[in-house]
Structure formats: C-alpha cells, structure tokens
C-alpha cells in the first residue's frame, strides 16, 4: 500500500509542522488557522485509519465549531502579538538552572522514547483491509454502541454540555450594576 504510506507521511508531517507553528509563531490569528490545518491533517489520518465517522466529526466539531469560537474570541478581544524580548526577559522558565534541568530531562525522555519504539517496532502490524464485517467504519455500529454499551457516558455528556452552556453564558456576562 505505497499510497497509504505516502499519505501517512504527508498528513503526519503537515500535522506536526502546523502544531509546531501554532506554538512557535506569534500572531494569535495565525495560530488558530494553523491549528485548523493541523485538524484537517488529522482528519485525513482518520480516513486512512478506516474511520470516516471520526474524520467527519473532527471537521464538524473541532474545525467547524470550536475553532470558530476561538477565532471569535481572538478577534473580539483583539489579542496582541507576543513580544519576543518581553518573553526572554520575564518568562519564569528562562533561567539557567531551569534550562539545564529541562535539557537533561528532555534528553532522558527522548532516549527512553527511542528505546520504546525500537523495542515495540516489530510487534504491531496493521491488520489487513478485510477487518471483520467492516465493523470499524460502520456508522450504524457506532450508533448502536453509543446507545447500548455507552449509554451512561452519553447521558452524562449531555448533562455536561448543558452545564457548560449555562456556565459559559454566566461567566462571560457583563456584571449587572
């Protein structure tokens, strides 16, 4: 499946580069737009993983709703660009002791990570295209599972959303004099 491999590296690379730019560059509107690009790349990865429902829901919910909310807030608050000199001066983690400790820790994490990857590399191969009755990609199967096995989390989530809606409205309201 050479095409699958090409698409995996393409989408994966796009997701990583976009995420790096989200945290790396200073204009907050560009950060939001780059995060949308990262979500689109992840959506492509979900399609490669035979999960069209997750892919489409990612675009509808994350890229189409949550990011619109972020964009509105950034625009209405007129968020300023971060100042690089200010960051160098005032960041609490920008001291020599913290830098040395941070470098040591990240080297340690990197070594452990590479060891884990090398140790596990041969173990998991992707199953063949004919997974059992296409059970992974059927939206009907997902619906059935949500309403039977996961019925309680589903109801709890709906209460959570209701609480979040009410909470967001109350928190962002101007104080009544």
């Amino acid at each position, binding site marked *: 499946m050479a095409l699958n491999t090409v698409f995996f590296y393409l989408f994966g690379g796009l997701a990583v580069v976009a995420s790096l730019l989200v945290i790396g560059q200073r204009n907050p509107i560009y950060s939001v737009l780059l995060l949308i690009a990262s979500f689109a790349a992840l959506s492509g990865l979900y399609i490669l993983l035979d999960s069209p*429902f997750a892919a489409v829901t990612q*675009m*509808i919910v994350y*890229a*189409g709703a949550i990011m619109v909310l972020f964009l509105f807030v950034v*625009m209405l608050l007129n968020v300023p660009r971060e100042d690089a000199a200010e960051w160098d001066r005032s960041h609490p983690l920008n001291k020599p002791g913290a830098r040395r400790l941070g470098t040591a820790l990240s080297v340690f994490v990197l070594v452990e990570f590479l060891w884990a990857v090398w140790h596990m590399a041969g173990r998991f191969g992707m199953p063949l295209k004919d997974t059992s009755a296409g059970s992974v*990609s059927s939206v009907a199967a997902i619906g059935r599972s949500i309403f039977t096995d996961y019925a309680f989390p589903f109801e709890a989530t709906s209460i959570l959303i209701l609480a979040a809606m009410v909470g967001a409205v109350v928190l962002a309201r101007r104080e009544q004099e």
Partner: protein
Amino acid sequence: MPAIDPVVVVQIVLVVVVFHALLLSAAGMVWAERKVAARLQQRFGPTMAGPAGLLQPFADVLKLLFKEELRPKASDAVLFYIAPVISVGTAFLAFCVVPFGPPTTFFGLLKEPIPLYVADVNVAMLVVFAIASMGVYGIVLAGWSSNSKYSLLGGLRSSAQMISYELCYGMALASVLLVANSLSLKDVVEAQAGAWHLFGIPILPRWFVFVQPVGFFIFMTAGIAETNRAPFDFPEAEQELVAGYHTEYSSMTFAMFFLAEYVNMVTVSAVATNLFLGGWFLPPLPVWLGFVWWFAKLSVLLFFYLWIRWTLPRYRYDQLMQFGWKFLLPLSVVNLLVTAAGVLYFGS
C-alpha cells in the same frame, strides 16, 4: 507505455466535467438572476449582450477582470488573499459527494455504466455538512483581514448567522437520515425510487418531500440563510452596510466571493434535490434519462431561490437571529422527534 487504469481516467474526467459544469452553472445563475429579477419587476433585464442577454455573465467577468486589484494598506495580506480562496474552495468541494444521475453508459458509447458522482462516500451527508461549516472561515477572515469597520461587522454578523442556521440544517439532515436509513446520498436517492399506488395507479412519487414536508421547509430556509441570500442577506445588504464583508475586495477577489455564493446556492439546491425531491427519479418517465430530470428539479429549486430574493423584504439582523434560534430550531427538533416516532411506529 504502462496501461492507464480506466477507473482513474473516468475519475479525472468526472472531476473536470463537474468543475466546469459548476463554473458554467454559476454563470448561468448570474444571467438567470438578472432576468428573473427584471421580469418580476416588469422590465426586460439584459438584452444587448448576445441573444436574450445570454452572454451577459461573460461580459461581467471580462469587466471584473479588467478592474484594478486593490488591497487596503492596513489589511493583513496573507489573510486578505486566503479568504476568497477558502470561500470558493469549500463551495466547489462540497459537490464531490453529490450524485447527479443514475449509472449511465452515455447511449452505449461506453462498455459499462459509470456512476455519475465524483465520490460515493458512505458518510456523504456529514461530509456536505462539514464542508458547509468550513465555509464560515472564508467570510470571517474576509471581514477581519480588511481591517475596516464595515467589513468586520459584516463578517462577524454573517458568520454568526451561518453557524446559527447550521444547527437547523443538521437536524433536517438527521430527519432525512432517519427515514432513509443511510448517510450516503446515493442510497438516499435510491430509496426514493418508485411511487405509491392507489387502486393500482401510481399517484405520488415516493419522494421524501411528501414524507417530510416540514423537513424540506427547514432545509431550504436554513440553506438560504447559510448561503447569505435574501431574505437573510443582512450582512451583505447594499443599503445597510455598504457591502459587508466584501467591501474592500475588488476585481477578481470580489468575483471569487460572488462565484462562491452562486456555487453554494447550486450545492444546497443539489443536495435538497437528492434528499427531498427524489434525485433522478420521476416515476412514469424513464430512469436512463435521469440526469435531465435531476437538472430540471435543480432548476426549479434555483428559480425558487431567485423568486424569494426578489419578492420578500429583508429581515433585520436581530429578527433573523430570533427566527433561527427561537422558531426554526425548536421546529426542527420537534420534526426530528415526530419523524423518529413515525419511523418507530410504521417500521419503514
């Protein structure tokens, strides 16, 4: 020379044909809008450019091409040019999953029938919805990047309107999903084949508009609001806001927003044709001419769009939002509940 897979060739041809058909349909809509508006206002409309003014859209495009391309100095260059690209891109992209005819062999020219859609995805309805939600970004970025008050207000209002009506749009889709039992647009159309019979005579085609009249009304209303057409076009109202989010755009970038609006109208009408009006089925008439019937229904819906624009007065912005949240949304929820009860009871 390695053999080229005919499937790939067919795909590429379909993509090219659909793309150009959409461009032509946008041009046709420009002409139709001017003519229908004129006739509704008891005048003639364009008659000079070509017979019956048919070359008017091409004249318009040429004029727009020769205009000066301006960008306000204080605007954000990257976002200013990306916004129309996003608008046009999402408008065209949504048509990938819309089928426009039964599998056809083009009068025996081909050995086997080819299906008339670019891609048959088994979650096609959700894909259309997802791409519609991405269309908001074109408008909101256009409003923001122009860095001018009219544009910003127009852009924010327009995007708030679009995301409000997306909910009703989605619920209307969900009620069709309940009746058709599948998210794939091709399956939904094929579920509408045939007709209901009374004493052995077919009287009514099995279209979902007869099963879900309220759903059809909600879908078309939400569609008109999504595409920012009158009576919901306050954000781009000429009299109120100069021109809303595309105030600062000129020449080809303005043409791109224009194009995006018309192609969005065509897409919403095409999806409505497939979901509610039976797609390419017109019961007593033969199915192999399916594309002609599909196109006829599409034209009826597009005429309906134009008719409404030039007949009804415009909603004020707060009236528009109230209509969406306080009337259309509860109505669509009730419609969904009633549909679910009906499906459970009648077991279809």
